[in-house]
C-alpha cells in the first residue's frame, strides 16, 4: 500500500524534498517562537496604549524609527551616521581588542597550563582580576593610555582575556594521560607533541574560553562607548537617551542583542572547524 501511494506521487528533486522535510521539522519550532514574539508585542502594545505611556508601544517604535531601519547606511558626518556604521565601529573595536586577548590569552594559558609551578603562582592573581567588572577598568586605562580609542580597546582586551587564559590552562592540564603515554611511547619531540597532541586536545577548552570572551567583549564595548563617546552603538544609545528618543534606544537594543548572538555563533562555528572528528 505504502509503495503504491508513494509511486503515484510526482517525484520531487532530492534537495527540495530535504528542505521540505527540514521545514516541516522546524516549522513547529518556528511557529512557537513566532507566536511567543507576537504575544509579547501584543501585551506590550496593550500596556503601552493610551496617553503618555511609560514606553512607546511597538507600533510607535516602528513608526518613529522607520527611517533608521530602512536606511542604515546614511552618513551625515560626525556621529550622525546610520546604524550599520555605528555597529561596524563597535565591531571594529571588539575585533582588535578580542584578537589581542585571544593571542595573549591562549599563549599565557598554554604556558601556565603546562607549568604547575607557574600556575600555582599566578592563579590567585587571575582569580581576583577576572572578577573586576569591565567598566571598572575604564578610568585606569584612560589614565594610562590618555586616549579614548585605545582605552576602549584595552577594556575589551582585559575583559575577554581571563576566561581565555583560564580555560586554555585547564585544557592543557586535562590532556588525557593516555594521549601523553602514546606520545611517550612514540618518543615524539616537543614540537610534534605540541602540534599533534597538546593543541588539538586543548582546542575545545580554548573555544569555550573564546565564546565566553566574545560575549563579555560585546558587553564591555557597549558600556565603554557610553562613557567615551564617538561613533559606536553604545554612544548611539546614550545619545538617544539624552535626546529622549526612546524608540531609537529600543531598536538599538534589538540590534545589540542580535549582533551579540551572531558573534557567539560565529566563534562556535569556527571552533567546530578546528575540531575534526569531534571530541570524546
Amino acid at each position, binding site marked *: 500500500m505504502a509503495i503504491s501511494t508513494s509511486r503515484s506521487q510526482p517525484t520531487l528533486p532530492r534537495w527540495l524534498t530535504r528542505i521540505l522535510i527540514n521545514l516541516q521539522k522546524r516549522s513547529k519550532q518556528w511557529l512557537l517562537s513566532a507566536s511567543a514574539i507576537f504575544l509579547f508585542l501584543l501585551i506590550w502594545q496593550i500596556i503601552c496604549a493610551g496617553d503618555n505611556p511609560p514606553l512607546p508601544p511597538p507600533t510607535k517604535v516602528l513608526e518613529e524609527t522607520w527611517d533608521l531601519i530602512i536606511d542604515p547606511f546614511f552618513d551625515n558626518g560626525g556621529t550622525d551616521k546610520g546604524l550599520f556604521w555605528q555597529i561596524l565601529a563597535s565591531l571594529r573595536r571588539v575585533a582588535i581588542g578580542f584578537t589581542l586577548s585571544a593571542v595573549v590569552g591562549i599563549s599565557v594559558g598554554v604556558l601556565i597550563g603546562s607549568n604547575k609551578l607557574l600556575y600555582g603562582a599566578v592563579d590567585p592573581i587571575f582569580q581576583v582580576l577576572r572578577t573586576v567588572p569591565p567598566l571598572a577598568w575604564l578610568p585606569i586605562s584612560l589614565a594610562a593610555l590618555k586616549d579614548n580609542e585605545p582605552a576602549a580597546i584595552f577594556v575589551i582586551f582585559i575583559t575577554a582575556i581571563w576566561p581565555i587564559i583560564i580555560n586554555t590552562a585547564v585544557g592543557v592540564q586535562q590532556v588525557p594521560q*593516555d*594521549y601523553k*603515554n*602514546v606520545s*611517550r*611511547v*612514540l*618518543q*615524539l619531540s616537543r614540537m*610534534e607533541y605540541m602540534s*599533534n*597532541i597538546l593543541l*588539538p*586536545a586543548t*582546542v575545545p577548552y580554548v573555544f569555550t574560553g573564546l565564546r565566553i570572551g566574545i560575549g563579555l567583549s560585546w558587553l564591555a564595548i557597549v558600556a565603554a562607548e557610553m562613557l567615551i563617546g564617538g561613533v559606536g552603538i553604545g554612544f548611539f544609545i546614550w545619545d538617544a537617551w539624552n535626546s529622549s528618543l526612546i524608540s531609537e534606544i529600543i531598536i538599538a537594543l534589538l540590534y545589540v542583542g542580535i549582533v551579540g548572538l551572531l558573534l557567539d555563533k560565529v566563534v562556535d562555528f569556527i571552533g567546530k572547524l578546528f*575540531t*575534526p*572528528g*569531534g*571530541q*570524546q
Partner: protein
Amino acid sequence: MVAFLEIDHVDKIFPLADGGRYVAIENISFKIKQGEFVSLIGHSGCGKSTLLNMVAGLERPTVGGVILEGREVRKPGPDRMVVFQNYSLLPWKTVRQNIALAVNAVMRHLPKGERRGVVEQALDLVHLRPAADKYPAQLSGGMKQRVAIARALALRPKVLLLDEPFGALDALTRGNLQAQLMQICQESQVTCLMVTHDVDEALLLSDRVIMLTNGPSAHIGQILEVDIPRPRHRLEVVEHPSYYSLRSDMVYFLDQQKRASRRQRRGQVIQTGTGAEAVRSQATLQIATSMSLEKNSLDLGFIPLTDCAPIVVAQEKGFFAQQGLEVTLHRKPNWRAIAQGVINGELDAAQMVAGMPLALTLEHIGTAPVPIVTALTLSRNGNAITLGKHLLAAGVRTLADLKVAIGRDSSRGYGLGVVHPASMHNLLLRYWLAEGGIDPDWDVRMSILPPPQMAVNLKSGKLDGYCVGEPWNARAVYEGTGYVVATDLDLWDGHPEKVLGVREDWANRHPKTHVALVKALIQACEYCDNHEHREEILTLLCQPKYVGAAPDYTRLGFLDAYDYGTGDPPQPLPGFNRFFQGQANRPDRLEMLWILTQLNRWGITPFPSNWSDVLDRLVYQDVFNQAMQELGHDPLGHAGMPPDATIQLFSGPAFTPDHPLAYIESFAIKHPNAGQMITVDLPTAEVA
C-alpha cells in the same frame, strides 16, 4: 631458556599521603622467550597493569629491573608498543593519520613513500582500509581496538604489550579480534605480554599464563604452561584434553584469591567491632576451616538413580556446606560421561560404579589408563535383575528356568542390558548367568545402556532383561512390562555398589578437601539410613533435577515392600538400599580384588601381577579413617586385609585373597583371555 625479556625481582612501592608505603608488587621475576605469548591474570588491583607499564617503561620499578635483549628498560620506546584498554587513539586524527603519526615519528629514517607503504600495510593487516579516512568517533569499539593494534604492529615492535585489550568489547567482537590477534602473532612471530582477567582468553591466546596473587604485595602465585598446539581455534581448543584442567586450575586460583581478600576484609571487621563476639568468633572459625581446604568449590557428577541419595542429601541438607564446600552437582546421562568428566578434570569427583576406579586405572577398552582412587563406598545393594513379562508367561521363575528358555530357542538371541562394563550389574549378572550354565558372551547378547533407558528398551522389545539399580527395575514392574527374577540380596548381600571416585593427582593435591568431601557424604549416608528420613529423601530424589522419576514406583524397596511383579505379594526387603549401617561406607581392598578377578574373568581388564600395589594405590583407607574419626565414628581399622576374610556369593567357591588367579581359573565359563597376568607400570604419583 634464552631470556628475551626478563622481569628481574621487581618491586613497586607507592608512597602514601600519610607518609606510609603501599607495596603494590613484590619480588616478581619471570623470563619470556622470543615469540612467546604470555598472559598476566589476577583480580583487579593486583598490580598486573602496573607490571605491564613497567615493561613499557611508563613506570619505573622501585626495586629490580626489566631487561629487554640484555638492556635495561629505563623509558618508554616504540620497541615495546602498548595496546591500551581504552584504545588511546587521537580523536582529531583519522584512522590513517593515527597510524601515520606513529610511523612517521618512529621510522624517520625511511623515505616518505616507504612510510606510506607501512601505513597501508598496517591498515590491510587489520582489514580497515574501508574505514581509513574515518575518525575514531565514527568507529565501533572493536574497530578502534583494531586500529590500535595496527598502529602498534606497524612499528614492528620487539614486544607487544596488551593491557586488557578486549575488555571493553562485546563477546562476538572479542572472539573475532582474538582470532585475528592470534593469526597476526603467529605470522609475524611477535613476543606478546597481555594483561587480562578473562580465563578463556588467556588459555586461548597464551603459551604461558602467569597468575598474580591479590595486592598488596602481589606476587606470582602460579605459572601455567598451556600445552595446546598451535594454530588454535576457539572451538577446538575447548576439546583439548588439557583445557578443562588448566581452566579449572585458573578458576580455582582466582577463586582462592577472592576468598583470601574477603577473609582479610572480614578479619578487619571482627578486629574493630565490639559485642556479639561469640557469634563472630564462630563465624571466623567456620571461615578458618573452609580456608584451610585446598579447594572449596567442587563439581560433583552423579547418575539419576535411587542410590545417588547420599549426594542429593549432602547437597540439600547442607552437609557439604557444613564442611565448607560449595558443590555444584552435574547430572550425567551415562557412566561413560561420568568417567570422561573425572578424567578431563571437568568434575572433581563423582559417584562411580564400584569397578570403575579399577577399570580406569588399568587399561580399559578405548581409554588410556588414568589412576582413579576411592576413599568411600557410597551405597551397597540396590540392584535387581529384571526380565520381560513374556518370560514370566513362559514360566521363567528361576535361573534354571531361564537356562531352559534360552536353550529352547537358541536362535533367538536373548538381549540383556547392563549400564557399564565395570559396574556390579555387569559383573553380578554375568556371574549369575554363568552359575546357571549360561555363557554371557555366547548364549545371550549383552549390551551397555544408560540406566534410565532400560525400562524403555524392555518395553519396546529390544531387551529381554537387564540388571540395573532402582528405580529402573521398579518402573518396569510398575508399568507391567517386566518382573524381577532376583535382587542382589539373592546374589551377594552387601556388595559394594557405588563408590566416590576422584583422580589420584586430584586426591594428592587436595587431601583436606578430600577428607571434607568424604565427611560430608558419610554424614549424608547416615542420614539416608535412618528410615524416618526416607520419605523426605524420596521427595528430594524425585525432583526433576535429580532422578525425575515418579515417587509411586521409586519408593518400592527404598521405602515400601518390594514388588517383584510376579503376582506374589510384595516382600519387605529391609537391607535393599544400604548407605551406612554395617560398615557400609568402608572402602574395601578385598572387595576391590574380587571385582578385579571378575573384570579379568570377562576380559575387561588385564590382571596386574602387582595387584597388591595397585589396590594399595587405589583404596584411600587413610582418608576414610580420618573422616570417620573426625566425625566421632569408629572406622573399625580395616587397614590391612584381614587374613581370614572371604567373600561368598550365592553359589560358587568362597573367594579369598590368597590365590586370585586360581579363583579365576576355577570358573568354567570365562573369557578366553582370562587369567593373563601383566605387569602394570603405575604412573608415579604426583604429590604436590
